[in-house]
Structure formats: C-alpha cells, structure tokens
C-alpha cells in the first residue's frame, strides 16, 4: 500500500499535472470523469485499460488536439509546436511521400530549410534503424517499418515529450517486441517523457516506470502501479519472476477496476 502511495507522488521534477479532467463525447456520454495525474520529467508512464475507457481521448487532450470539458492540464513549461511528438495507432503516413519526406513533414511545417530538413530526417530515420530507406514509399514498407517511420517523424523535432496511442497494437508479436526494445532504448538515451497508451498488460509492464490503470464508462484512473525495475530493461526481463508478479498485480487491478 505504501508502495502505491509512493507511486501516486511521482519522483523527480514535475512536467505535467492533470487535475479534475472531465470530457464528454459529442453524444453527451461521459468519456473521462475526474482524471488526476502528475507526470514527472523523463518518466515512462502507460495508460492501460479496456477499449472505451477514454485513454486515447486523454492522450489527445494532453497533446492539445482537443480541449477538456472541465479541469486543467498544467505544464511546467507550456509546450510549443514541435515539443510534443505523437504516434497514432496507424502509421498515418502520407502515401504519396517518401519515408524521408514523411519524416521531414514537421520540419517543413516549422519552416526549416530543405537542406537541414534532409539531414535531420535522415538522422531520425537512422535512429529508428531505417538507414537506406529514405527514398522508399510507405506501400513498399512492412507494418513495423511504417511504424518506425512514424516514430522517426515524431522524434524529428527532438521533442522532450512523446505520446503514443496504442502504436504497436496491429503488429505481430515479434515485431512488437523489437519495437518495444527500440522505443525504450530511444526514450532512455534521449531522456524522453513518454505517455504510452496500450491495452496489453505485458507491454505496459515491460516498458513503464508507472502504469495508470483506467476503468471504463466513465473513464477514470483507478490505480497507479509502479514497476520498480531499472530501465532500459533487457528482453530477459520478460521471463523473470518479478515480471510475472507485476503482470499478475496489474491484471488483478484491471479486473477490480
């Protein structure tokens, strides 16, 4: 119980505080009812819950793509355009543009010169393991590679915050494991604050420092569970007793939610 209490008060410097967030869907049903959450700088936090619990809605509110009906989202420093990277459930690439031009899109919108765009887009592609694929069009890339391009695009502006909305849900398990490892390496190396929406217990436990368990209709955070294992974690972590124990705890909390 004390461990959970400690999990509520995030360690480190506060980056973002959600207080009393309410949101209704267009048809009037409550999507989110009273979300309170503090996110620390550099932490990896997962929002885990059944479909329809409003976790994607919450992520869009944090990104500023939508406004809460009530409540406040308070940033330590108000993010500007390019300070938040967002990865959607689908790769959401421009099918008529090459991988490089897709990745360079945020830079183009920021009015950055063509030559600089080229360098930074290629660097971002290299960071996600896609050197040599700059000229490829989305249709010639696999699902996992497309998702890598989407991650490269989200990282190309070097944002301190990365928001991911069930990014790997449509991928096969092996590809998902690879992308999980690469994501946690990138997050650790760059000191990113990551808010990760998922419905996979194992994925949440493997990646997160804290897991916010959400309940549905109306969406609220029922429990916060810490994963006190230093990051980045090795793939063997998936087979250790501690991993199984935390998964069991998270699953129980999901059922109770």
């Amino acid at each position, binding site marked *: 119980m004390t461990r959970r209490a400690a999990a509520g008060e995030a360690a480190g410097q506060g980056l973002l505080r959600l207080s009393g967030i309410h949101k209704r869907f267009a048809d009037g049903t409550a999507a989110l009812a009273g979300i309170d959450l503090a996110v620390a700088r550099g932490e990896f936090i997962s929002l885990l819950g059944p479909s329809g619990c409003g976790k994607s809605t919450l992520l*869009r509110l944090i*990104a*500023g*793509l939508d406004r809460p009906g009530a409540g406040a989202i308070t940033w330590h420093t108000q993010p500007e*355009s*390019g300070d*938040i990277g*967002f990865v*959607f459930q*689908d790769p*959401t690439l*421009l*099918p*008529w*543009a090459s991988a490089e031009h897709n990745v360079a*899109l*945020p830079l*183009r*919108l*920021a009015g950055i010169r063509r030559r600089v765009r080229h360098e930074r887009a290629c660097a971002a592609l290299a960071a996600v393991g896609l050197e040599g694929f700059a000229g490829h*069009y*989305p*249709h010639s890339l696999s699902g996992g590679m497309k998702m890598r391009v989407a991650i490269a695009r989200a990282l190309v*502006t070097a944002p301190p915050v990365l928001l991911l909305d069930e990014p790997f849900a449509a991928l096969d398990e092996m590809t998902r494991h690879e992308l999980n490892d690469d994501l946690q390496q990138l997050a650790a190396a760059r000191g990113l604050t990551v808010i990760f929406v998922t419905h996979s217990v194992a994925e949440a436990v493997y990646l997160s420092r804290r897991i916010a368990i959400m309940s549905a209709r109306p969406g609220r955070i029922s429990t916060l569970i810490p994963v006190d294992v230093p990051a980045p974690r090795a793939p063997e972590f998936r087979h250790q007793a501690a991993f199984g124990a935390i998964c069991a705890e998270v699953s129980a909390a999901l059922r109770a939610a």
Partner: protein
Amino acid sequence: MRQRTRMQRQAKQAGAGGTRIMAIVMPLFAGAVALGGWEFIVRTAQIPPFVLPAPSAIGTALIAGFPSLAASLWQTVQITALAFGLAVVSGVGLSLLFSQSRIVEMTLFPFAVILQVTPIIAIAPLILIWVGFDHTDRALLIMAWVAAFFPILSNMTLGLRSADPNLLALMRLYGASRLQTAWLVQMPTALPFLLSGMKISGGLALIGTVVAEFVAGSGASTGLAWRIMEAGNRLQIPHMFAALILLSLLGIAIFFLLSLLETLLLRRWHDSARPQAWR
C-alpha cells in the same frame, strides 16, 4: 531449387506477356471479323448504301472527305478541350472553396446539383438565345462546360473530404496553416478522386459538345455533330459513318490521354496505378 523458381518466374512472366499481347490481338481480330462479315453481308444482300454502307464505302468517304472532316474535327476538339479545361478549373476551384467553408458549400451545392440534373438539351435553346445566335461557339462552350462540370466538382469535393482525420490532427499538432493542410494533405488525397472525375468529365465534355451542336443546328456550327446531321439530311450515309468514326476516335483519345495522365501521376504511390508486383 533456386534455378527452378527462377524458371517458374520466367515462365510466369512469359505468360503475363502473352496475356498482354492477347488483350490487344483478340479485340483487333474480333473487329476484323465483324468488319469482314459486314462487308460480305452488304455485298451479297446488295443492301443500298443509304441504308447500310459497306465498310469499304465508309473508308472511301472518310479518305475523300478528310480535308473538310478534319476541319470539323478540329472545331469539335477545340470546343471539347476548352469546355473540359473550364470544367476542371471551375470544379476544382469551387470544391476548394467548399472545403474551406461549410456555409458556402451548403449554399451553393444544391445549385450545382440543379445544373447537373437538368438535361442540357432542355436549357440549350435558352442559352442560345442568351448568348445570341451570332455567338454559337459560346453557346456550345457553355453547354459542354455544364455537362462536364459536375463530376469534377463532386469527385473533388469528396476527395478533399476524404483526408485521414489523424493526418489532419497531425497537421494541427504542428500548427499547420489552412493553406499548408490543403496543399500537403487534402489536395494530394483528392488527386485520385479528381483524376477519376476527369475521366468521366472528359467523355461528358465531348457528349455535351455534340448535343450542343445538334441543338445549335443550322447556326454557325461546323463541328462533327453538325456534319452528321448534314450527311443524314442528304442521305450520304457513308459520310455520316465517317464523321461518327472520327467522333469515336476522339472519345477514345480523350479517355486514353486521361488514363495516361492518371497512371503517370499516381503510379509511385496509389494502389490503383501501381504494377501488381506480388501476383
């Protein structure tokens, strides 16, 4: 093993190439058989040329009358091309306006539909009176434009509305302007829709021109449709067929050119135009 798969692939390619050749040869063969049968029946049954001319008679009429038919063809090509160009420019322009303002769309779209559902042949006399009988060309142009306009407007409007909502959210996230969103996301999304609208519209521009020429009739019109009427009145049926052949060829050329444009613009990214690599 590798040797065998390569041979299989080569065999498959040869098969695919064979299919492609057959797709050209077989229709030509069927056409030749039909023409031969036609010639044979006309000759053996001694059908008079003012009822059904033999293909050879039509060919002779086409060659003999070509200089004057070519002038008529050129007239029809000009009106059709101009009307089509106007339809593309005005249709794209109006749909862009619609995509920026829901109120403008709500206000104007019903009138576009009224323009579309009213048969042009019914408004043709009115247009002729409005523009004056000494400006028949303008009347032809307006009628062909009305016929060709709607597929562009409706396809482009649908295309602009079909942009991926997540891509639009992405553009908002990075603070894109309306112009940037339109240029970088909405217009490329709409391009396949526009090109398919253009294929319909190109044919309709020709139909509109022909109908307009029929209606304008004895005025200053000298296009191919007028030549068909003229030949019909004089019972010069081979000439009628000759003009008809040129109209068909023009229709085929329009469709072919627009299909080529579609392939050139979409082959690098759109599923409809990419070679089927994995079959």
